[in-house]
């Protein structure tokens, strides 16, 4: 299968500051490739190098065979791009802004109408009067208004409400069904899980893993908070992929790695008053996948169990493993 995006040893440094280091990447035709990483990991730098906005310090990247730096305009003719915080001219209406982009891309005036209708964007409102979410819609609409073979999206759904996020995912699915390729940078693991076939994980400028979404799901942890009607049997949570972070007579905070079905089957045998399952954020998953391993020898509990703790979980005083401290440090550094 053809590589739509190909990066070989792609490195970008800003003087002494690290940008991205030795990134090797191949995004295949027709796939939706998720690009995950915490803030400052190098996602946007990678995208800006792919767009030819930044000159690689070393290495090379191509888009459908066009060198991203030397042949940037040719590469741009093959893609649509939306940035994480698109900037527009405040005095233009959303429609005027979209027409401007359409003309730059050789599309007819009004090419954006169907996408705008789907995302419920009012094209008559001046951009300066739009909320952040609606400004983001302008970017998403302009990405979807053409039929370029590649869409590069840098956190496109930040600021969109859940309904619009769902519509966005439907549009991505349609693009994929049409055989086009999407490179989707995101913080949102659930979004990536739903939209993408493969993911690349970047951390501290290095592409640390490229995996399928199924493998990522299998390896990542969920936080489960339980309130039971009656005290639980001692062996209730004795499952290979479950760790008990804290437990009292009727409350339990668990961490579950991968498949939650074995735990749900156990829970079906008792009376449960309340259950809340939440996905950890991307940073916690990174810490778990890559730093947690380093701490494994310490016998610590699962790190980052405070990532998305459901309300009611009172585990603060009980999180005392070295992994917990690591999680806190890691999060500070990443942000």
């Amino acid at each position, binding site marked *: 299968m053809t590589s739509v995006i190909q990066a070989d040893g792609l490195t970008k440094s800003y003087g002494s500051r690290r940008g991205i280091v030795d990134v090797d990447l191949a995004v295949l035709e027709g796939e939706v490739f998720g690009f995950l990483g915490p803030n400052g990991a190098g996602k946007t730098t990678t995208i*800006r190098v792919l767009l030819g906005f930044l000159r690689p310090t070393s290495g090379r990247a191509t888009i459908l065979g066009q060198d991203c730096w030397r042949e940037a305009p040719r590469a*741009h003719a093959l*893609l649509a791009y939306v940035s994480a915080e698109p900037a527009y001219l405040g005095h233009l209406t959303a429609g005027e802004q979209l027409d401007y*982009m359409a003309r730059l891309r050789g599309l007819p005036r009004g090419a954006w109408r169907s996408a705008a209708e789907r995302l419920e964007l009012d094209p008559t409102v001046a951009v300066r009067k739009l909320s952040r979410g609606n400004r983001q819609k302008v970017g998403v609409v302009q990405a979807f208004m053409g039929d370029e073979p590649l869409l590069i999206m840098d956190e496109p759904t930040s600021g969109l409400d859940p309904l619009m996020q769902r519509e966005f995912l439907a549009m991505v699915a349609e693009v994929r069904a049409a055989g086009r390729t999407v490179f989707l940078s995101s913080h949102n693991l659930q979004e990536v899980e739903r939209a993408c076939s493969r993911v690349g994980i970047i951390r501290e400028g290095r592409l640390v893993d490229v995996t399928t979404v199924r493998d990522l799901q299998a390896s990542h942890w969920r936080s489960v908070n339980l309130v039971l009607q009656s005290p639980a049997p001692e062996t209730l949570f004795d499952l290979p992929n479950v760790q008990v972070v804290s437990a009292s007579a009727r409350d339990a905070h668990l961490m579950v790695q991968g498949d939650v079905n074995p735990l749900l089957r156990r829970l079906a045998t008792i009376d449960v008053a309340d259950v809340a399952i939440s996905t950890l954020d991307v940073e916690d998953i990174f810490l778990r996948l890559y730093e947690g391993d380093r701490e494994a020898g310490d016998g610590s509990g699962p790190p980052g169990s405070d990532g998305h703790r459901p309300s009611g979980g009172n585990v603060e005083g009980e999180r005392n493993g070295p992994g917990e401290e690591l999680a806190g440090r890691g999060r500070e550094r990443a942000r």
Partner: protein
Amino acid sequence: MIPVFWLDLRRSRSLILWVGLVAVLYAGVMVAFYPSVLANAEEFDRMVEIYPKELLAAFGITDGGISDPGTYVNSYIFQFLWPVVASVAAIALATRPAADATSGFLDLPLSSRLPRLDYLAVTIGVQVVSLAMLSALTVAAIVAVDLLIEPDFDTGRIALAGLHLFAMAIAIAGATTALAVALLDRGRAAGLMAGILMIMYLLNVVAGLAPEFGDLGRLSVFYYFDLQPVIDDGVFPAGESLLYLVVAVAGWVSAAAIFRRRDLAT
């Protein structure tokens, strides 16, 4: 390129309108005032003599009586008005790519099939058109008011002066464009260019007052901005205009060389 050109020109409307209004009103009022100056020339000349010559030199009034058309138009209209108008307009227009890079708006045209150099060429084209319009408005205001009252000035010579106004403005714009794309920071580029222009203005004044510093004046853009010979004698300052043009083109070519290869980091 065409959509970018029209949008960029559209963005320049307010600037052209307001700066042009200032230029038109000032030039028009000063021309309307000229018949009174002629009628009271001796009194005006005596009044001007009261001021220290350093102060007069700072405003470009160095020689000639106030009733002389060349002195009046050069000193009281062009020297007062144009350095400010040209600097404000040229800096505002030429730093736009830097402002767009900072805001992220530059990502839109440059993520399309438009090459960087084409984009820069368009912004330079808008600078040229906008500054030409401001020069033309200033000249038109002088000519129109002059024709409406007692015609005292040679229309052709005023038009020739307009060419020199334009040449000076694009020289500032060219240099500012190079600074703007090198720094990609509108505030820093505009501040730096404003500072350079103020130093140049002072250099020109000092050079005019102290012969021992005369050569320093040659470093100033304002040294080459003397339109009295055009108005009085019809002698166009071709060398000075050519120098402005060379500075403008050098600035734009430098800007292109920098912009073509630099990172667009925001």
